[in-house]
């Protein structure tokens, strides 16, 4: 069930007053924002001691979320760590794990302005390589966080290599699906046989860094969003996820997220991080990206079909499985012939 505006209004007001230490807090408007098929995201226009304050609340879903998603408290901590190393994110303010307040876990961050919708951003020709350069730097900052001694110790780390870990995970998901997916099994076998053996350094990866998950206002990046899938992993997985065809929103010739050139993205990332992107391994991770998105798409379709979360958006996502699988199969075929 969705959160009810009338029910959560007063508890939220009191929560904000308590955490901000303000004497007078008013809530001018409170409404659910679109997007967030899994979590609920709400806009809060508050007035704190006579100063307007734009806030956004992210609350856990009432039903079981997508597997792999971290808790709101953990997402809050990740956001804080990213904010500290200079990643452009909405500033995280307060987290609440007391379910007597609104019935769910939630956190509140400062509102950032702009557009996130991928299909709109790829049509804005003013963005181009300047935005791609900026995104390359942002990803480099994200990848400057390492597990040792980190307060993010709770994040999942691969039992084996990140590639093997992903393969095992998607296979186990597929085992529980209602239908068989021989095409995806085929790609997973190829991924298994070609898994990278080179040494790597475990790094914080965002795990959903792509067009549609960042906000742009007047041509400028205002925030990297949706940190709920992050974990310790291999930088190449994030880089390939951003560049994969499935996240170009139809602007297929712009290989960096449907926005600009792949090489610009790579160069800016390398300059900011001091690392070298292993270009030969990116196609491998792009196959993985399509397999991953396909297995998630199947699950989203199932969320709709099972009645857990009836929604047209989830239903249509389920129908995207075929093209994701086809893209992965074609890439595998091309690399097998080479």
């Amino acid at each position, binding site marked *: 069930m969705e959160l009810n505006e009338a029910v959560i209004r007063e508890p939220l007001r009191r929560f904000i007053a308590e955490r901000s230490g303000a004497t007078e807090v008013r809530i001018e408007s409170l409404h659910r924002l679109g997007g967030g098929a899994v979590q609920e995201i709400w806009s809060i226009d508050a007035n704190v001691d006579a100063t307007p304050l734009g806030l956004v609340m992210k609350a856990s879903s009432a039903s079981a979320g997508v597997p792999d998603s971290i808790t709101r408290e953990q997402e809050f901590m990740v956001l804080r760590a990213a904010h500290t190393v200079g990643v452009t994110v909405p500033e995280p303010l307060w987290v609440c794990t007391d379910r007597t307040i609104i019935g769910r876990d939630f956190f509140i961050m400062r509102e950032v302005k702009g557009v996130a919708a991928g299909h709109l951003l790829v049509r804005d020709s003013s963005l181009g390589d300047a935005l791609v350069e900026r995104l390359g730097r942002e990803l480099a900052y994200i990848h400057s966080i390492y597990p040792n001694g980190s307060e993010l110790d709770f994040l999942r780390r691969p039992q084996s290599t990140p590639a093997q870990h992903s393969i095992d995970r998607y296979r186990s998901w597929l085992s529980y699906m209602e239908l*068989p997916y021989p095409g995806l099994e085929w790609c997973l076998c190829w991924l298994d046989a070609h898994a990278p053996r080179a040494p790597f350094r475990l790094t914080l990866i965002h795990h959903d860094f792509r067009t549609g998950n960042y906000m742009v206002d007047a041509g400028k990046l205002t925030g990297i969003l949706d940190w709920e899938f992050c974990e310790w992993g291999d930088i190449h997985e994030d880089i390939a996820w951003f560049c994969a065809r499935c996240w170009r929103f139809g602007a297929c010739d712009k290989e960096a997220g449907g926005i600009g050139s792949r090489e610009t993205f790579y160069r800016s990332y390398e300059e900011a991080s001091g690392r070298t992107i292993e270009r030969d391994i990116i196609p491998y991770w792009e196959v993985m990206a399509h397999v991953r998105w396909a297995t998630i798409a199947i699950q989203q379709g199932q969320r709709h079909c099972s009645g857990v979360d009836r929604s047209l958006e989830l239903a249509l996502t389920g129908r995207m499985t075929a093209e994701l699988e086809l893209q992965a199969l074609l890439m595998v075929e091309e690399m097998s012939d080479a």
Partner: protein
Amino acid sequence: MRDRPNAFELLDIARETLVQDILPHIPSERRYQIYMVANAIANAEREFRAGDVPLQAELERLRQIYGDSVDPPVADRLEDLLLSFNRRLARDIRAGRLDDERKHTVQEHLIETAKARVTETNPKFLDVAPVLTSQSTD
């Protein structure tokens, strides 16, 4: 016999009305939802039009891979047959049980099958020349 218009003629005019007559009156922030509804109708319509043809072709290819003898005895409906064949194929692929000779046929079959599904779910996807591994090994 049923009357005309038939099912997909109805879906067709429903979608046309939605996009041409209703959409212009919808505030811009909700248009995305109208596009999703139109997309769902178009999806269903293409699946209707294709009927059993792609499924029969898929079954034919699966029979070539496995031969007739392995038909699961319980299955006589097309969907059930496809389901048991595909379960078996998925298991065989994961277990690495396909010999080299069959591998090529299987890969072609899987690509054909995925293309047939995409023809129904998103035919525009097939128009774009596949942007594959441009930066990989050349």
